């Protein structure tokens, strides 16, 4: 049930998906892996949309070089843990929801607890090894994973429904080489909001997700394309021999 205050706060989206939809968002828990370029816009938009619990993990502290794109962090947050900085801004943006911040490196030993009873995992990481770990946890737990990644003016996103769609290792069997990637803030802005939009749609039970489709954003040419991606029968993470 929504309070009168909530009905007012969400009035414009209640026109879109009604009180039932808003109740679904209120009852939802989302785990966001990363509070950087992607994590900031994802968390902010899910917070103001009224997602009831946002769990966010990041091990880093805010550096000045982050500020061109990590829009929840400010000049006076430099040196502060990213999750603390993000938590403060998210509470300010929407005091009616719960924020759980985890200042930790996501690894094999804690990924299960971090995801906990979340309805959804959102990938806002900056490296493939951790993404593969999130993918394996999604497959193990059956919790969908919304992938996004960026570099420069380019980005990609896809929604992984365990057992139904291609998983991250089906689509990207090999990680690209690690690097200090160039980036302008609008790129994680675009991709992060596509991920947040996917999250809201999934939580509302909408069809036509980015499931089984890989979206490629080219910010220089201003083109956005989607390609069908299929499960690999020999995928080491999700093939029938490994998992149902």
């Amino acid at each position: 049930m929504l309070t009168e205050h909530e009905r007012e706060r969400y009035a414009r989206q209640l026109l879109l998906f009604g009180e039932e939809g808003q109740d679904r968002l209120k009852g939802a828990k989302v785990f966001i892996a990363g509070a950087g370029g992607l994590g900031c816009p994802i968390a902010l938009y899910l917070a103001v949309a009224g997602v009831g619990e946002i769990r966010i993990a990041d091990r880093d502290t805010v550096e000045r070089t982050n500020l061109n794109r990590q829009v929840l962090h400010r000049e006076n947050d430099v040196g502060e843990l990213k999750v603390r900085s993000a938590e403060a801004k998210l509470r300010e943006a929407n005091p009616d929801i719960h924020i759980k911040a985890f200042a930790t490196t996501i690894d094999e030993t804690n990924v299960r607890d971090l995801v906990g009873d979340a309805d959804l995992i959102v990938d806002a990481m900056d490296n493939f090894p951790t993404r593969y770990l999130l993918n394996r946890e999604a497959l193990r737990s059956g919790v969908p994973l919304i992938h996004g990644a960026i570099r420069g003016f380019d980005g990609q996103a896809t929604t992984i429904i365990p057992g139904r769609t291609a998983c991250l290792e089906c689509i990207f069997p090999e990680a690209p080489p690690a690097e200090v990637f160039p980036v302008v803030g609008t790129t994680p802005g675009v991709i992060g909001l596509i991920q947040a939009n996917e999250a809201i749609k999934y939580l509302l039970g909408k069809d036509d997700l980015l499931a089984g489709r890989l979206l490629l954003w080219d910010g220089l040419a201003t083109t956005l394309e989607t390609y069908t991606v299929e499960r690999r029968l020999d995928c080491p993470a999700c093939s029938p021999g490994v998992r149902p």
Partner: protein
Amino acid sequence: MKVRVRAFARFREVLGSDLSIDLPDGAVMATALSALREIAGDESGIIFDEDGALRAHVILMRNGKRVKRSDLDTLVLADGDEVAIFPPVAGG
């Protein structure tokens, strides 16, 4: 025959975003890749390794479907096919 090639992310910088390559009828995917390697010239190293093989992380698609490494020498292309080639991006 003509095959359309769409390159994304860093590959666009060396191949252009949308190009058309002329190939002999019956050409296989490996032939198209050799043509792309020539077009990329000195910068082909971000797409191909020293032996001319596609780098492991590169994604290759034909008409919207992923092409397996094991099919490069046998997959016959047709006039009007669209090949997409891109590296996954990894930042956040």
